[in-house]
């Protein structure tokens, strides 16, 4: 376990891993780059417009509290001056000094009461700023989230197919969070910081003592620069840290996904060795990043202390009226309290400069997040609904493809001049190897994607001339990739329809062969499903989606027959339920069963994304093309993927 036991990590080793698993690094430098910082910041501020009043209150309160903070040392210093004067007076004439009255501006009492007042303003304004500010930020985040979420439902499917799930979710959750956390803070820090720096400087210069002012601030530019530099170096290490973290993530994920394999091949040792290399590198980067962050404060404190000492010494000179021990006389302008004032001003002056320089990383990443969120908000939405032929009620279920052409990418033709018609009771089978693009037909029918030329007609009406909602009312969909959400079984079944009685739900469940199972569960229809219905089996999930489709009572059905990882009995139940579902409807079936294919009125054969053949079983067999080849290589044992 000693440090030496770990084999030395060379840069080559680690950069290999980092490159290999770079996709796992969601905090990479690329993600932190802001393309248009100014535009993004301006746009962010424009979001604040609806909260003008609150924002103004927050700003005014911050300004007021900062001003109070800047003037307070003056009063404290005056108190000390008065105290000091009293001592001297006492020593000279033996008269104890009165605290004076409130009307006497130079009395101790007046100064203490004023200080109390200034402090009260300071405290109260800080409270106002935080209290009102909390509401504004949260409201802003709430609205931004709402906007993003609404936007998501208006985006074309293309967007979801193009971006990974993780990226989209990260925008809705993490980026918005990052924006809210950092931007508000940074903005206020910069605003109050600027006031504080200028205010402290003015207060110091007001005394007219340039030398003292210099003594109080001369190291601040250095500490500012150092803080800025160290923040930069530490950022570099942190980004290295995140890239090794990405490598770790990738490595670990691969090892666990392949856990069986690791075990079967006795590969534990090698995987541990790789892990060690990455882990130790992670430790090194984490150490460097944290150390730099850790030594920054002591260094800044040293600078602050040096400034303090110089204020004391120079102040001492002024107090005593001579320039060190040289005997050179200078004007005696400083009292003890004035020195105290300069000490406070010195720290008021330096504090914002260092805190702002440390904040730059945060601002950058928040701006980058804001930019990503804005990019999402600017994504082109799906075309507006055309409702010139808005149907009343449901169609009869006659579907026709007329000279349809479609491609996902402009330069890759997929479907060219495709014709097909189907009416209620008809079955259109879609066959082809896995990954052949069978969902394309679904995408077009449901208008998840728009075709480039030709027409798709529903009861003779071009689907482009009706609203998407009206079109989709006609469709029911049961996919192999079942989609259930957290909620009761009942809620999941009645997902498609609003007002529906319990009897109807039960009837649908019965037709879908799932009623008995539901009743055998402790809470029956009120049984809570966990996320994605993970607490029931795949087969039961499928039956529930069938019940859901039955309840919706669609005119056209899109069905995926695949029933993998389902036991024989459930498979039979599913087949029965599907047959029930297809009765009297126009069905598009992603077919896996011979009987379906043979009974189909039309078979669409897909391969590598495009439709390659079309016809009935007999026609296609006679044609002796790709379908015949597929068929002869046996359907039932799973469709071979790489038949050439």
């Amino acid at each position, binding site marked *: 376990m*000693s440090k030496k036991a770990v084999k030395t990590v060379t840069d080559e080793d680690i950069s290999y891993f980092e490159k*290999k698993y770079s996709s796992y690094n969601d905090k990479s430098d690329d993600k932190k780059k802001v393309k248009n910082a100014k535009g993004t910041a301006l746009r962010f501020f424009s979001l604040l417009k609806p909260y003008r009043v609150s924002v103004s209150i927050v700003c005014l309160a911050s300004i007021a509290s900062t001003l109070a903070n800047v003037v307070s040392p003056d009063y404290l210093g005056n108190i*000390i001056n008065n105290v000091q004067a009293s001592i001297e007076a006492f020593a000279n004439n033996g008269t104890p000094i009165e605290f004076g009255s409130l009307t006497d501006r130079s009395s101790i009492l007046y100064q203490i009461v004023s200080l109390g007042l200034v402090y009260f303003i300071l*405290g109260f304004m800080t409270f106002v700023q935080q209290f009102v500010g909390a509401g504004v930020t949260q409201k802003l985040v709430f609205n931004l989230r709402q906007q993003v979420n609404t936007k998501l439902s208006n985006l074309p499917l293309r967007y979801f197919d193009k971006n990974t799930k993780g990226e989209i979710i990260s925008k809705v959750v993490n980026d918005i969070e990052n924006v809210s956390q950092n931007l508000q803070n940074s903005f206020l820090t910069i605003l109050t910081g600027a006031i504080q720096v200028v205010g402290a400087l003015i207060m110091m210069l007001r005394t007219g003592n340039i030398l003292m002012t210099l003594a109080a601030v001369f190291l601040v530019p250095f500490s500012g620069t150092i803080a800025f530099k160290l923040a930069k170096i530490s950022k570099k290490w942190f980004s290295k840290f995140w890239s090794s*973290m990405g490598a770790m993530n990738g490595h670990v994920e691969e090892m*666990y996904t392949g856990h069986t394999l690791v075990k*079967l091949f006795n590969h534990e040792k090698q995987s541990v060795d790789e892990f060690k290399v990455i882990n130790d590198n*992670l430790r090194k980067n984490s150490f460097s990043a944290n150390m730099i962050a850790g030594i920054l404060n*002591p260094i800044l*404190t040293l600078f602050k202390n040096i400034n303090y000492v110089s204020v004391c010494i120079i102040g001492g000179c002024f107090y005593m009226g001579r320039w060190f021990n040289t005997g050179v006389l200078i004007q005696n302008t400083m009292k003890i309290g004035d020195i105290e004032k300069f000490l406070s001003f010195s720290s008021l002056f330096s504090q914002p400069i260092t805190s702002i320089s440390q904040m730059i990383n945060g601002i950058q990443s928040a701006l980058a997040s804001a930019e990503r969120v804005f990019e999402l908000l600017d994504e082109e939405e799906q075309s507006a609904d055309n409702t010139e032929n808005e149907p009343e009620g449901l169609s009869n279920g006659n579907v026709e493809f007329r000279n349809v052409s479609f491609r996902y990418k402009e330069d890759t033709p997929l479907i060219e001049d495709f014709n097909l018609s189907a009416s209620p009771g008809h079955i259109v089978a879609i066959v082809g190897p896995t990954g052949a693009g069978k969902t394309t037909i679904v995408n077009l029918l449901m208008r998840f994607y728009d075709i480039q030329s030709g027409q798709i007609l529903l009861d003779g009406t071009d689907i482009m001339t009706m609203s998407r909602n009206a079109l989709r009312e006609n469709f029911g969909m049961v996919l192999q990739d079942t989609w259930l959400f957290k909620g009761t079984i009942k809620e999941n079944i009645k997902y498609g329809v609003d007002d529906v009685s319990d009897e109807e739900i039960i009837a649908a469940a019965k037709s879908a062969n799932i009623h008995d199972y539901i009743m055998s569960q402790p809470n029956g229809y009120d049984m809570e499903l966990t996320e994605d219905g993970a607490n029931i089996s795949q087969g039961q999930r499928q039956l529930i989606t069938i019940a859901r489709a039955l309840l919706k009572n669609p005119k056209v059905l899109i069905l995926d027959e695949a029933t993998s990882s389902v036991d024989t009995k459930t498979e039979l139940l599913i087949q029965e339920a599907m047959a029930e579902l297809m009765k009297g409807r126009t069905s598009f079936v992603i077919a896996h069963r011979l009987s379906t294919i043979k009974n189909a009125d039309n078979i669409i054969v897909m391969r590598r994304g495009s439709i390659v053949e079309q016809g009935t079983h007999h026609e296609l067999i006679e044609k002796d093309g790709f379908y015949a080849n597929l068929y002869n290589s046996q359907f039932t044992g799973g469709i071979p993927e790489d038949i050439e």
Partner: protein
Amino acid sequence: MIKRLAKCVREYKKDAILTPVFVIGEVVMEVIIPLLMASLIDNGINAGSMDFVLKMGVILLVCAIISMFFGGIAGRTCAVASAGFAKNLRHDMFYNIQNYAFSNIDKFSTASLVTRLTTDVNNVQQSFMMIIRMAVRSPMMFFFSFIFAFGINAKLASIFLCVVPFLLLGMFLIIRKAHPLFKRVFKTYDKLNSIVEENVRGIRVVKSFNRQNFEINKFQDISGSIYNDFVKAEKTIAFNAPLMQMSVYICTILISWFGAKLVVNSGGTELSTGELMSLFTYTAQLLNSLMFVSMIFVMMTMSKASAERIVEVLDEKSDIAEKENAETLVKDGSIIFDNVDFSYSKNADKLCLDNINISISSGETIGIIGGTGSSKSTLVQLIPRLYDVKNGCVKVGGKDVREYSIEALRNEVAMVLQKNVLFSGTIKDNLRWGKEDATDEEIIKACSLACADEFIEKFPDKYDTYIEQGGANVSGGQKQRLCIARALLKKPKILILDDSTSAVDTATDAKIRKAFREEIPETTKIIIAQRISSVLDADRIIVLDDGKISAVGNHNYLLETSCIYKEVYESQMKGGDDNG
């Protein structure tokens, strides 16, 4: 839990202990500085002694440098200790996970293990840094500031004693009110995440059911409740800073009032001007340190959940243990299942495998068929001891699998899985999983046996072709053939193919089986298949039905005696003319 985690500090114990020591040094210096400042003002400036001022100035500078030195070293040791601690945590977790049996792995999902190793460890590392640095610093600061203030003037210092309880009470009330709110917010965040995820994943379903508005409302509800809780929590927290400031200010005002009185009335003998000034500094230090304590408290409760999740992984014991002095030599490829019962969960009502008895001799080719859920995969997984049997025993080479060292057993049993996994890396890298030091000839040989050479040769980079994560750039059938080649490189005594040629076309499938028969006759081959043609020519075929052996025999025998087999055969070979 803390004890369990503390064990992982190990070689970084020295740094972990030194950090607070240095921090104490830093704190002492920071507390001494105001005292020296007071002396500089009283005995130097006030007394008009420039020599004293300069002397004190130098001492102050030295103290400031020592303070920085201590602080810097503490920063360093803290970074060493916390980074090392985190490394050890990850290391221990990873090691332990490597030893998990499958039943253990099934308990955690991959995603959750990854989060535990990354995010959770980061959280705990942050807390650890806080503890060894701030958790010492703040109480020390409080303690020393108070002692020094007390030393200057006990009566004035007692002002702190009056104010601190109010401040503590206030902070306590604020935390008590805000903490549950924050906790609830974090929980609701999880819900928000899962809703967004549900929606993104099920976007087609949502759209096809025209439920966009429904989903938007659902999102709005959750997002709204986060908003409400957050605003409430933050509005509570908004009292924190003013409370703190008010305490400092009240102390300052009271000290200036009574202090001024004291200085004036005693003519500077009981309390000097410089001392009065240092009392102001102590006020700020003292109360600020209390603030930090409350922050540390909040931070630690937040990382508690992470710590618990880590300990869960560390404490999980592997269900499959290796025997001491285990046998390391597997004699041959014979396999015996002797009254084997098995179920995945200990208290399942139904057995997955029910009284399995079969004896397979070395070199035999065995086919296994049966419907989905008939426990075909389960049966073969017992051979390399991925799971332990419930009753009975599985013997390989004449000995119970539990007698062997796991490494030795798995070296001799190669299994190609239904779910094929290739890793990112070149084809060669992937194949060498089977044998680390395999020569190019061996690799080419194995690939030709698995009929993988034909397509590999077509790639521009041949055996150095880079396979992307999850094997995304090769087809299903190619993947399967690569996996078979990888298993063959092990030169195992037993080779198990779990439905591993499903994506390979029939002709190639037949070619692979022919190669097996001719090139590795001594190896016992077990082939699970959906396609009956894949097992037709096996020496014996086992028909599994619902966890029981329904029939065993060669093709012709089964065709006559087993109706299940006959049914499957007919539906596949004759194409199921009417009923499929």
